[in-house]
């Protein structure tokens, strides 16, 4: 006698009333958000057509004007320097914040909570807002941009460094503790080497993010290429603005390619 084949299970699990309610709530949120904020399609279409009209923005942008390539290049270099300096300072300062925010390494739960709160605050406030705050503190110019990038990077790298240390193998740390190593000795000798690949990847992503961010910081007066871009738009020199945008794009792509290469080599 052959055994009866077992029937396959139903394709979908039956939904409970609560599941239906949650689904309806999510759908309602999406539809109401689209209705309240999404632009009407005909308006978008008319706007796009205007960009390409004889007096439109895109028409005036072409061909890009590279006649001021030398001063723009210097500003681009300043942008890169702001990004590197801000990122470097931010990454260095992110390390102690990350240590204090890590369960196993923090000296006290209250300190851990405090460090996590500061990291979250630094990450949540946009870098443009930090730039405005630092312009008030140190005045217009690249110094405000460097400080804004630094604070933003403490928030970004602090979180990822802490996660990497949290996930590292506790075995070598226990062994160092058992040897009688100091906490600092244990962290530098056992935690950092284990987290090196993760730290490197985070640092390179932070650099890419800094370069992209530093270009925009000039729009609020925090130095770099953004200042040139704002002036070009203000003076309706759209062809020069396109040249600046293309040079920024080249810089960002170069940094991304470079950091990608370093990541592949190191990790």
């Amino acid at each position, binding site marked *: 006698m052959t055994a009866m084949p077992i029937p396959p299970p139903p394709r979908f699990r039956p939904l409970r009333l609560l599941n239906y309610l949650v689904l309806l709530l999510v759908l309602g949120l999406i539809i109401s958000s689209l209705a309240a904020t999404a632009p009407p399609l005909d308006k978008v279409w008319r706007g796009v057509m205007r960009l390409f009209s004889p007096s439109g923005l895109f028409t005036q942008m072409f061909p890009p004007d590279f006649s001021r390539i030398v001063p723009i290049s210097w500003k681009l270099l300043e942008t890169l320097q702001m990004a590197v300096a801000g990122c470097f300072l931010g990454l260095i300062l992110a390390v102690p914040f990350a240590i204090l925010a890590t369960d196993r390494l923090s000296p006290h739960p209250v300190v851990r909570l405090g460090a996590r709160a500061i990291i979250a605050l630094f990450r949540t406030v946009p870098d443009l807002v930090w730039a405005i705050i630092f312009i008030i503190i140190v005045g217009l110019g690249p110094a405000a941009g460097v400080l804004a990038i630094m604070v933003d990077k403490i928030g970004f790298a602090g979180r990822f460094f802490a996660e990497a240390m949290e996930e590292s*193998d506790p*075995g*070598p740390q*226990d*062994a*160092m*503790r*058992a*040897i*009688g*190593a*100091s906490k*600092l*000795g244990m962290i*530098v*000798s*056992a935690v950092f*080497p*284990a987290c*090196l*690949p993760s730290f490197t990847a985070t640092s390179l992503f932070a650099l890419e993010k800094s370069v992209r961010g530093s270009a925009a910081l000039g729009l609020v007066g925090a130095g770099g290429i953004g200042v040139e871009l704002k002036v070009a738009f203000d003076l309706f020199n759209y062809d020069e603005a396109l040249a600046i945008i293309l040079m920024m794009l080249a810089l960002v792509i170069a940094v991304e390619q470079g950091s990608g290469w370093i990541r592949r080599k190191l990790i």
Partner: protein
Amino acid sequence: MNTPLAHAVEEAGVTALAPVLSVSGLAKSYDGRVILQSLTFALSERQSTALIGANGSGKSTLLKCLVRLTEPTAGRIDMLGQDVRALGPNELRRFRAQVGIVWQRHNLVPRISALSNVVHGVQARMSGPRSWFQALAPATVRAEAMSCLERVGLADRAMTRVDSLSGGQQQRVAIARMLMQRPAFILADEPDASLDPQTGEEVMALLLGLVRQDGLSLLMISHRLEHTLRFSDRILGLTQGRITLDQPTALANVTDLRRFFEHPETP
């Protein structure tokens, strides 16, 4: 010969050496679950003692309690002339420096050289950046680390990354790191567990050599009957957190010992 604490006290008048380790009424519970129940025993110097018992009998917990990597719930531990439970944080660090631990998983720091890992052992008596990596270490420390590696037969692999060494070689590096501590007492948690029989035997012979030639004291968890018989002077058997066997290895009955290896306990 090692003796239980009661006998050691009784024979104090005729025994010249005080016990190097004496444990009295040691207990440990986790969340109301009893792991160790009122353990009392004492070990003399320059002896190799095997600690045997089924999985979950409390062997590893006992070892961790001895150096307070796990805090005991009750009882007294006197080791190397110190009341271990009364030590403050700094005294505990100095005490741990005298106790070398060989772990079941070697617990080496990955991504760095064997020599750097061995140099870490010096953190038992030295702190600061010069004890963090071999490249920063003073010449005397590097020379001592090399001689420790030579002792375990790995001087020629000093600059090899530990994670590219075989399991047996990694365990030898861990022993070299432990030697760098200049310990007076060795705790070993199944040092041969992850090794093939031949390599496991070599590692056990190396540890016994430290007892015989260097006069160190060894308390090791053993999970192989043949190693227990060959590499120990005395056997302590744990059953459900209690010492149910305590005798010189020479007098051990193999049939009696088998029950400690063959009958896993349910917690």
